[in-house]
Structures are given as structure tokens and as C-alpha cells.
């Protein structure tokens, strides 16, 4: 199967050089080719698994439990200013 690697890379927001895309294309093709094996299985009427076990949604009461930990939480940030995260602008 021919996979549009550049398109997928764009959706994933990962830059790929032309060389990288060239190298990846056959690898992805191979992987997807292997995965196509799944089409051999008859899955008529089989419900898909989203969660391995039937678990109930836990309840959480609507009570504020978090406090202002901005400084600690922003320690790992690449760029902040006055408590705001700073990123380059989107070019419209």
C-alpha cells in the first residue's frame, strides 16, 4: 500500500526531510502490509474492545481540591512570561 508519508507526518506535526520520508515509506508500507493480515479474520457481529474489563465510571464530587501551583508547574516550561505560556504566533 502506498502511504502518503508526508501527509501523515503533517497530521502528526513531525517534520520529515525528503530523505527521512523516503526511508520511512517502505517501512510503513511493510508494517501496514503486515497489519493487513487482520482482514483474514471474520469479525461479523463482533463488538470492538475499548476497555479490557467492564469497569464502572468512578464518581468525582464537584469540590475544588486543587490549589494554585503555577510556579512549580511552570518550572519545566520552555518559555513563560507573567504566568502565561509563550509560543510563536500561528502565521495566518
Amino acid at each position, binding site marked *: 500500500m502506498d502511504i502518503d508519508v508526508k501527509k501523515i507526518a503533517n497530521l502528526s506535526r513531525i517534520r520529515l526531510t525528503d530523505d527521512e520520508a523516503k526511508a520511512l515509506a517502505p517501512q510503513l508500507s511493510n508494517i501496514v502490509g503486515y497489519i493487513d493480515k487482520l482482514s483474514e479474520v471474520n469479525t461479523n457481529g463482533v463488538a470492538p474492545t475499548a476497555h479490557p474489563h467492564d469497569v464502572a465510571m468512578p464518581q468525582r464530587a464537584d469540590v475544588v481540591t*486543587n490549589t494554585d501551583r503555577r510556579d512549580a*508547574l511552570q518550572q519545566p516550561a520552555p518559555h513563560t512570561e507573567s504566568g*502565561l505560556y*509563550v509560543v510563536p504566533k*500561528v502565521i495566518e
Partner: protein
Amino acid sequence: MSWEVVIGLEVHCQINTKTKAFCGCSTEFGAEPNAQTCPVCLGMPGQLPVLNDEAARKTILTGLAINANINLESKFDRKNYFYPDLPKGYQISQFAVPIVEGGYIDIPTPNGEKRIGITRIHMEEDAGKSMHEGLDAVSHIDLNRSGIPLMEIVSEPDMRSADEAVAYLKQLHQIIKFLGVSDADMEKGQFRCDANISVRRKGEPFGTRTEMKNMNSFRFIKQAIEFEALRQIEILEDGGEVKQESRLWDSVKNESRSMRSKEEAHDYRYFPEPDLPPLRITQEEVDAIRAGMPELPNQMRKRFETEFGLSAYDADVLTQTQSLAQWYEALVAAHPANPKQCANWLANELLGRLKEQGKDITESPVSAKALASLLDKIADNTISGKIAKDVLDAMMESGKDADTIIEEKGLKQVSDTGVIDAMIQEVLDANPEQVEAYKGGQERLFGFFVGQVMKASKGKANPALVNQRLKKYLG
């Protein structure tokens, strides 16, 4: 061969829970940037969502209020896209099986009530805020809003005019406020509307639709829809094709412009959220929520018409907000003899004066009890309706009650027959030519005599009594 506009509306409404959808952060408006964030709503490594019960309950309540079905099992999905105000790079939403499906709202139109279908309501989390204003090459991100629970309310494409669209939104907005599930303040971004707009010649299938965003008042929504309908009609009449795209409304220039749209950018790759099991509720729990539903606007309107004998128009005015409706009911409770008079005084006299001062009913310096006692003074003929208006002005300014003001200003109406007769006699004696003229057939002069008596009494004479006694004198 006339054109018809077809409108569907998507409303994102913030649910007014105390905490966010998936974490225990506060949702209060106006905090310092990023002061209300935690590792979960910041999407930090290894963090997991836990659903807020109250958000689910309020969504169910809203679904019940719009006559919809509650799915006893609903699921969460991930909606994937990249934007700096979306910390995880996906939004937790509901795609395949929303919590509420099918419903309707009846809206008033010039041709009577029209039913607008609602396709679904689902829960999802809000994104943070990106700020670009006045910044050169950067944007600033505040994630306090990230994770606040939203209801997304999707209508069927049942509206056929901008007015219908606005009527639908006003009804929806009112229902939501009555339910107390959201403050729905449009200026604070708590009630946001996107419109899907297309045009077609009557009888033909639906045309290509565009999505209009960034309309943050009912007025802009009306303008934007009308503009967009015209824009599309022009294109089609010129033989062109309407492009399917998202457009932004510019309320300054009164026009819309296309948002840069990349086809791939809209591949949301929805799939079931593995971090949250299905949400299951029992019919008993749904019934309990329904039992706690407050009176809805249209129920209240109808009740005001029957219980208080009000016109549809008056009932509508007085049920605009719960606080106003409650105020009216308190007024009637204190002055039960004449609900119509209460409605008139509240809607026309009090609200009019409050509006001039930029206040709403909750800020009224005159309480319902106080207004009721003023109305009592009219009813027992202490003062006339005309004088009562002056008294009301004085009550609003001074905060004093009706009795005090009437005393202080000596405004008591004169209803003593003897006193009135004496005044009438004086007036008649002072105006013999007019008496002659009246007796000679000029009946219009009756009003002149009434006016003179009122003037002589400085307005305090009981007008009805004046009329009655004058008739006796003049024959």
C-alpha cells in the same frame, strides 16, 4: 424560484460546575493566568482524567428540559488536533454515543410556534485561551479555561431565517439560565454559537454549507447570518459554487472572511477514549434528576397567562428571567387583588425607570412589598394612579416607603365629597360663561371643569369622584 436560507446552530455552553470536567481545579472566572491549572488539565506526562459527576448531571438535566432522550450508556472519545491552547493535543469529547440525543425547542414566530429539532447534546472539555492582540511574533496562552466542562448543543438544520435562529438561541439561552446549569454570559464566552448556513431554491436539496464563527451577541448572529445568506446567493446567481469552509464574522467591518482551512487539519481521527470507561446511569437516576427540574420558561409563561390572567405578551415579558418572574409573584402575593395591575406597574413603570438607571430587577431600590403597598394606596383611593407615579419616583430616589412619602408630601388624595363639592362650587361660580356654554350643548367643556377642579386641588382630588359629583352639579 425564491431563495431560502437553511440554518443549523451549534452552541458550546460552559457548565457552571465548581470544578473542571476532568480535574479538581476551580472554574472561577477572572483568576490570574494559569493559577487554576494542575498536571491533569495541563496535559502533563502520565496524567489521567476523572469525570466530574455534576457536569454529567447538569447535561442530563438540560437534555430533559429540551425533551430529549438520555442515553443510559454513553462514551467518551478523543478529538485530535494541535493548537497551543489544547494541552493534550486532543480534546476529550463525545462523538459516537453522546449522553443526550434527539429533542426540540418550540420558538415563537410571526406564524405561530415552530418546533426546532435538536440532534444531540454531548459533554466535552473547553480549551484554554490564546491571546495574540498587540503581540508581535508570539501568542500568550492561559490555560485556566482548559478543561472547563462544556455542553455542545447541536440543532437540526430547521431554521429558515436569521430571526428564527435568534429566537431559537434566545429560548435555549433562557432555558439554560432557568435550569441553573450555566451562567451563559456571552461576553465571558460561556455561551458560544457557531452557525452552519446554506441556501437553496425552495424545494431543492440542501446546498453547500459554510460554518460561521466568532459571533458573540444575538445581534451579530443575526447580521452574520443575513450577510452570509446574501453572499452565497450572489455567488450562486453568478453561476459560481459555494466553497465549504469556516468563516469568521468581523463585527466591525460587518463582513465575514474565510479562515485558512486545510483539509487535513480537520481530520480529527476520533476514537474511543481509553482512559475513561463508558458512562452509565440508571433510569432511576434520570428520573430523580427530572424530579428536581425547576419550572421551565414556557411552563411559567403559560401559568402566568392562566393563573394571573395576563396576556401572552405580558407573560413573556415577566418571565424573561427567573428573578423577574419571582419578583412579580412576590408582588402579586402582597397585592393579590389585581394581578394585571401588578403586571402593568412592574413591566411599564418600575422596569422602565430601572432601565433608565441601567439597573435590572435584582438591583431595584424598591422591593416587591414596597411596590405592593403603593398599589394598595391606589386601590383604597388614598392617591390617584397619576400621583402614584410621582410617589414611585420619590420611592426610588429616597428608598422611603409609599406611606411616608404620601404623608411628607401631603399627597393624600382628597375623597371627601363635601370638600370636593365645595371646590366644584367654587369652579362653577368662577366660570359662569363656560357653565352657560356647557348647558347650551358644548359637552366638551366637561373636561375643562374637571381640569379646573384638579388644578384647584393641586391634583389631589379623586378624579373619579370629581367626575361623579360634577355630573350631579351640571346635570
